[in-house]
Each structure stands twice: as C-alpha cells, then as structure tokens.
C-alpha cells in the first residue's frame, strides 16, 4: 500500500500548494451546476417522449450524464496525462529507474484524478439531490457494475493513448478523437435517440454510450438485468478488447522509447 499512498500524498501536497486553482475549481463546479439547473428549467419536460425511458426528468438525466462523463474522461485522459506530466517535469526516467514498474506508474498516477473526480461528483450529486430536486430510483448493484465496466473499457483506450504519448510526446489522435466524439455522441447532454439513425449507429462504437444508458436506466428507473443486461455484455466485450490492446500498446511503447533513447524527452 505504500506505493499508491505515496502517489496520493504527492498529489495532495502539490494540489494544496495551488490554492487559487483549488478555489476557482470549486466555483466552476457550483456555477456549472447552477447552469444545468436553469437549462433544465428552460427545457422543462419538452423532450418527454425521448426522456420517458429514463424517467422523464431532464435535470436528473443531465446530471447523471455530466457526473459519469467526468469519470470516463479521467479514464480516457489520466494515463496519457501522467506520462506527459512526468515527461515535462523530467521525472519519468528516474521514476522508472527507481524500481517502479510501468503499470504501477500508470495506475498509481490515476488514483488522485479518480479520487478528485469522486469528491467533485459526490458534491454535484449531493447538491443535485438536496437542492435541485434530482430524482433517483437506483439499482445500485447494476449501476456499479455498469460504471466499473465502462471505466475499465475506457481505461484500456486511455492506456493506448498513454503509449502513443510516450512515443509522440504530444499529439495523441486517439484522445482527441474520443474526446470529440464522446462529448457529442455518447449522450451526455441529450439522449442518443435524438440523432439520425446513422449517427445513432456511430454512437454505438463508444463504450461511454452504453455506459451512460445502463447507468441512467439503473439509477433513474431501477432497471434490472433484462433492461441493461445487453449493455453490460457489450461493455464486458469492450473491456476484453481494450484492456489487452492497451497493455500491449503501452508495453510496445515503453520498449520503443528505451530503444530510441527518448524515454526522458519531452
């Protein structure tokens, strides 16, 4: 446990030395939440036919999308971000020479972003429930399973990104592509059923689309296996595909930079 705790402690110390950024981040979160509330007021229940499968409440639909999209974004970006950050600081070589295994470096570096997102999301969740009238009818078990499988699927893609960043230093087309697509296509702000059928088809290639659908159904409608089972199986398939690909890509990248002599370059 000493290694993951060391990474967490390092990040907490560093984070708390940037006090202005900390305060601004808190303000941003509250302002975002207020924006979602007023957007929901404006929209009202006009999209009821499309929101009916999710309970019909736009604010609840939106907050679930935003909160979990934050987690998925961490899975997508945190590994490449960690590689890039250590390259910039000049600490990557010495970290890996110290006896830390590459996979340990990736996963321990991700702990703090996940924890921070958990704190952030808990606050949004709490405010959403207590202040803004978010309505939940959760099936906790299936929601947790859907959440974990989506996180794992996207983490596999994130590991591929980390491998690319390790080699390229900057400019990761996968992160860029997934970042663009997932915000637009996975149904964070609106149900994917609003798209024309060809775009709906394209949205299915993103694990986030299936994750958000399963999470909304299980958290807002207390849906059981018959409603979300197919989404969970798709997420499992995504996980089985992306994790080995991510591991292989990162391992290849690590060997390549040691052959090329660019491990410490930025």
């Amino acid at each position, binding site marked *: 446990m000493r290694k993951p705790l060391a990474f967490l402690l390092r990040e907490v110390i560093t984070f708390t030395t940037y006090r202005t950024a900390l305060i601004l981040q808190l303000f941003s979160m509250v302002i975002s939440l207020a924006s979602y509330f007023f957007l929901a007021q404006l929209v009202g229940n006009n999209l009821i036919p499309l929101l009916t499968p999710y309970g019909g409440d736009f604010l609840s639909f939106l907050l679930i999308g935003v909160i979990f999209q934050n987690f998925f974004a961490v899975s997508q970006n945190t590994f490449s971000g960690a590689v890039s950050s250590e390259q910039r600081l000049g600490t990557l070589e010495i970290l890996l020479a*110290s*006896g830390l295994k590459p996979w340990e470096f990736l996963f321990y570096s991700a702990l703090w972003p996940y924890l921070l997102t958990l704190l952030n999301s808990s606050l949004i969740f709490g405010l959403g429930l207590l202040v803004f009238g978010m309505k939940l009818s959760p099936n906790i078990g299936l929601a947790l399973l859907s959440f974990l499988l989506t996180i794992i699927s996207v983490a596999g893609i994130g590991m591929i990104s980390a491998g690319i960043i390790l080699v390229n230093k900057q400019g990761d087309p996968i992160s860029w592509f997934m970042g663009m697509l997932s915000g637009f296509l996975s149904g964070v702000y609106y149900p994917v059923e609003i798209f024309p059928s060809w775009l709906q088809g394209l949205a299915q290639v993103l694990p986030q689309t299936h994750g958000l659908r399963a999470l909304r159904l299980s958290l807002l409608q207390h849906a059981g296996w018959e409603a979300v089972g197919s989404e969970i199986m798709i997420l499992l398939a995504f996980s089985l595909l992306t994790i080995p690909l991510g591991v292989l890509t990162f391992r290849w990248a690590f060997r390549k930079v*040691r052959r*090329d002599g660019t491990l410490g370059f930025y």
Partner: protein
Amino acid sequence: MRKLRLAIESQKLSKSFRASRKAILALSEVNLAIEEGTVFGLTGANGSGKSTLLRLLSTLLIPTSGSAKVNGYDTVKEEEKARNSVGIALGSERSFYWRLTGLQNLEFFASVSGHSSSFSRIPQIIASLGLEDVIHKKFMTYSSGYKRRLDLARSLLKDPPILLLDEPTSFIDPQSALVIRQLILDLKARGKTIVLVTHNLTEAEQICDRIGILDKGKLIAEGDLSSLRASFPNACWRLQTSPPLKESDRAILLKVEGVEKVETNSQGAFLFVRKEKFSPSSLLSLVGTCNWEITHFALEEPSLEDIFLKLTEKR
C-alpha cells in the same frame, strides 16, 4: 545476492540512435570489467557516450548490440533485478518535484522504490550529505549544490551495491563537491561499486581506482592511473643546470634523439620526448660535452589531463 568479483561487465556494448533517418553511433563495442568495491571514473568530451553508457547500465536504454551485466544480472534478460541493483544520480535538476520539500521527495522515492528499508535509511542519508538545514524546504528553493546532494541522496535509498553517478560535482560550490567526494570514498570503503562520470580530471585522479576514457563512443583507454601513464607514448623530463639554460640552448637539446620539443623557463628546461626513442643517457652525455652542471634531472609524470588531451586529439 550472488557474490561476484565483477560488479559491472560488458561485452561489445553498442548503442545507436536514429536522427533524421540516419543512425548515429553513440557507443561502440565497449568492453568493461569493473571490480566490486572500486570507483571507476569515466571521462570524455561532451557527446562521447558517457551518459548513454550509464543509461544502458541502469536499464533506461536497451542496447543495439552487445550485452552488459550489473551485479551479475543481464540488463536486458534480467532487467528488473539489474535495475534493483543500481542507484543512479543523473545530475538533472528537473528530476525532482519542485513543490515538495527535499524530505517529501526522498520519502516519495523511497516509497516507490519498493524497498521496505529505504524509509528507515533516510535520516542517516540526510546526515551523511549535510542536508539537515534544507531538508524541510521546498526543492524549488535549493541551490545547485543542495540539488546535487539530494540527487545523490536519492540514489542511496535502495542501498544498492552499484551507484552510477553522472557528474555529481559539476557546477557546484567547493563545499558541496567536497561532501560528495568524501561520501563516494565512504561508500567505496563500505564495499560499494561506483561509476563516476566526471570532467574534473583532478577529481578522477584523486578518487578513482580505474579510469576509462571515452571518445566518440569508443573506450579508447582504460586502466589505473599508473598503467595509463605507462601506456602514454610521450614523457616530459625536467632539466636544471648551472649555469641555467638559455633560450639559445634549445637547439642543442633538440638534437638528442627522441626529443620532440623543448620549453625553457625559470624552472629549467622541459623536454617533451617520445619514450620509445629517447634515452636519458644520451642526454646526459650531451650535457657533459657542454660543460653544464646538472642540478636537477627528473621525469615529470603526465597528468590525467595530459593523457586525456593526447589521446583525444585529432581523432
């Protein structure tokens, strides 16, 4: 741990990099045999391959061809064991977390090293490097000397049998350099093997048991100082006579076989000779014919700097 006489060995160790579609040879067929408990000095001009060699030995680089073993472990086939046998100080100020204190940095690297005893060793390491006064200050406030000391402190956390130190005393104040040199000697006395990359040839003469000279990726000379001197093709003799030699006497001395150059000053004449051709007796015969009385005649040992400059010139 396997007990071995050689701490580091390499056979035809080579490394080339690609730049603009061209292969650049950074290290060419380097053979090393460094005994346990010794300090091996590595010197050479900038870009001669010293840091590349350290990175290969620490597993941060994979060789293009050839092989190396540290502490008996192959750096490619047994890279994890090899990595755990080595402590490395790369001499880079950027290899620390600047917003953390020196102690927080050491505690972080001790934790990630995976060696349970690293933590308990920290106070002793801090004391041995005289870091007590600054250890609770943020790294960003450190002077260059303290940054180097902390770099060295970090390399000791695992208590590794082998230390690879990349110019630990360059660009720092004399006090810090002295502390670091003393620590290197203490570590050697405790049986550690140290590879010391340095441009300071006086330092290499003082603390290294053996010295390797790299030039354009090739190890062009290797041995202890006396063997390097013995292999040096040139020598310098200092001659003092009564009456003192004059500038006009240079031409006479140049007639002696093997004498290539003569310089005179208030300390006498300095005769630069080729060892294989020069015989001191022929010079003494000449002095006798000139009726000079010899007050001093001795061989001036070449410094490591003389040897380095001679070996690396016109290559």
